[in-house]
């Protein structure tokens, strides 16, 4: 892979991490309202996947969507302003964290309904097929979502029509408080691919290169008209399910073990070892991203609130 791409990937992961670390602080300070679900610890999955996509490809995202949005090219300023509920935000303050979208960038929205994207993504795939383009759609969803109605019907539909959809299960081992072992009797969600006659692949979701390669293969298949792939990325969320979650359901030890497998630290080490980045480069990226995040916060803070009456706009086209 080209050096630029590797550096781009590293930067994206850092952007997600820093953006969310800031969001976490702002939430604790009461400056961001509503529900906020953070992606910290899972950055390699979104970035490894989206590194394969063109701007005109699509993704569907989840309630835990900041990482997907940034990795697919979303604008950090507009995201932050949305989290603040400002007029300048992606959704003019109407959506908040769970509904950020950027259709022009192919981001078909975060989704507050678990499994929501699993029914929509095949539609985007069908659309590409009917319009005769080679656009692909990446559908992100959680281990918990793999038990939803939409998983089954969505994968079945995509498989029979050979739709260009890559289903990426972000298996962070919990659906809120319920461990995977209590919500399904299989260890690998990828095994469910058998039910649809499509390839199922397990990948280390904390290894951005591994994710990249698995998705690359799936994208190739999809663009060639060979249909969907189910990829399971094993990963872990560092924070609670939502900000404020006391996480009574897991041990500090477990969290620590996963923190030691930090996807960013791991990729950094790799890039340093390969001589692609120096410590100085890393510091520079970190600093640039920190400045980007600060600028996003400033933008959000300085932006006006929407006018109340605007609440009745945008209901119909």
């Amino acid at each position, binding site marked *: 892979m080209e050096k630029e791409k590797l550096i781009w990937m590293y930067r994206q992961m850092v952007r997600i991490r820093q953006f969310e670390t800031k969001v976490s602080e702002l939430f604790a300070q009461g400056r961001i309202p509503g529900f906020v679900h953070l992606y910290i610890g899972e950055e390699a999955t979104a970035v490894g996947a989206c590194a394969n996509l063109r701007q005109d490809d699509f993704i569907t995202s989840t309630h835990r969507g900041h990482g997907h949005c940034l990795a697919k090219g979303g604008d950090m300023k507009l995201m932050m302003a949305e989290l603040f509920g400002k007029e300048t935000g992606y959704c003019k303050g109407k959506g908040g964290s769970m509904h950020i*979208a950027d259709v022009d960038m192919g981001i078909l929205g975060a989704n507050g309904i678990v499994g929501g994207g699993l*029914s929509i993504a095949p539609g985007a795939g069908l659309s590409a097929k009917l319009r005769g383009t080679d656009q692909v759609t990446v559908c992100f969803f959680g281990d918990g979502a793999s038990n939803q109605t939409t998983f089954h*019907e969505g994968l079945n539909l995509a498989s029979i029509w050979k739709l260009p959809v890559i289903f990426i299960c972000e298996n962070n081992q919990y659906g809120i408080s319920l461990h995977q072992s209590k919500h399904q009797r299989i260890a690998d969600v990828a095994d469910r691919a058998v039910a649809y006659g499509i390839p199922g692949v397990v990948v280390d979701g904390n290894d951005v290169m591994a994710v990249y390669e698995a998705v690359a293969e799936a994208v190739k298949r999809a663009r060639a008209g060979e249909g969907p792939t189910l990829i399971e990325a094993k990963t872990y969320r560092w924070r609670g399910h939502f900000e404020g979650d006391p996480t009574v359901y897991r041990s500090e030890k477990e969290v620590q073990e996963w923190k030691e497998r930090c996807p960013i630290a791991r990729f950094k080490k790799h890039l340093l070892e390969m001589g692609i980045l120096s410590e100085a480069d890393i510091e520079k990226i970190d600093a640039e991203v920190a400045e980007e995040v600060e600028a996003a916060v400033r933008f959000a803070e300085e932006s006006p609130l929407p006018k109340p009456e605007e609440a009745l706009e945008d209901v119909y086209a």
Partner: protein
Amino acid sequence: MRELTYAEAVREALRLEMRRDPSVFILGEDVGKFGGCFGVTGDLWQEFGEDRVRDTPISETAIIGAAVGAAATGMRPVPEIMFCDFLTVCMDQLVNQAAKMRYMFGGKAKIPMVVRAPVGGGISAAAQHSQSLEAWFTHVPGLKVVMPSTPADAKGLLIASIRDDNPVMFFEHKLLYPVKGEVPEGEYVVPLGKADVKREGSDVTVVATSLMVMKALEAAEKLAAEGVSVEVVDPRTLVPLDEETILASVKKTGRVVIAHEAVTRSGFGAEIAAIIAEKALDYLDAPIKRVGAKPAPVPFAGVLEKYVLPGTDDIVAAVKEII
């Protein structure tokens, strides 16, 4: 003018729009070679092929989800759900996705899709195949709700719905499918949000939807024989609703009966009654009457089904109570 059945009129609208706009396509269970459970899609599969008249698995969630995803990315899907009763299986896709995406995204998406589904009883299909669930959807901002009562309206409103940039719920009545009526040829658009006065009268207004428009016209005929002049107003689209035409009629007659086949309790008739009771109360010379299904699921046996579902006589009786 040439006559078509209601089913043929729907099919003609689909055919014309599919010829006109390559982004329009149909998907649903048995809509292809089989021609649709009620024969509505008929020979469209022969003309447009299996890509654009697309048979799906029995997966309503996936059907509507696929429509939403396709609509958000440049297509104009027209999914068919075999019976409106099965909308229960895809409510999330309709209510939390299709209806809200544009709004949640701050206006930066459009979801042009038309969900066609037959409503109604009268064929001994029992409780899970006979409902009229349109009221639910009128409660959901972001959806439009259309209910044609004649072949001409079916054609004109369906064309308007397909051209609309919003998700539209388009409810057809099973018993209307074979009913014939004059239908204009070629491009014929009935705009959403315009009620139609199906019969003029001066003593009492009957606001009726779908099959109940026919029954209201029958009732009007009977009542005319007894010297009562009934005005029949068909809203045609429930969302957007043409309040003006309804209120004007009520202000003229001072009396109103509202008739739909759906269960009376919390049916759309309640909304119409509430609007009248707020905006035309002073014009009312009598209580507002509603005619709808009695509070039970739709039973199987004809004798029971007839008792539960409203008919011409119920409208006649309701009118007589208030004149």
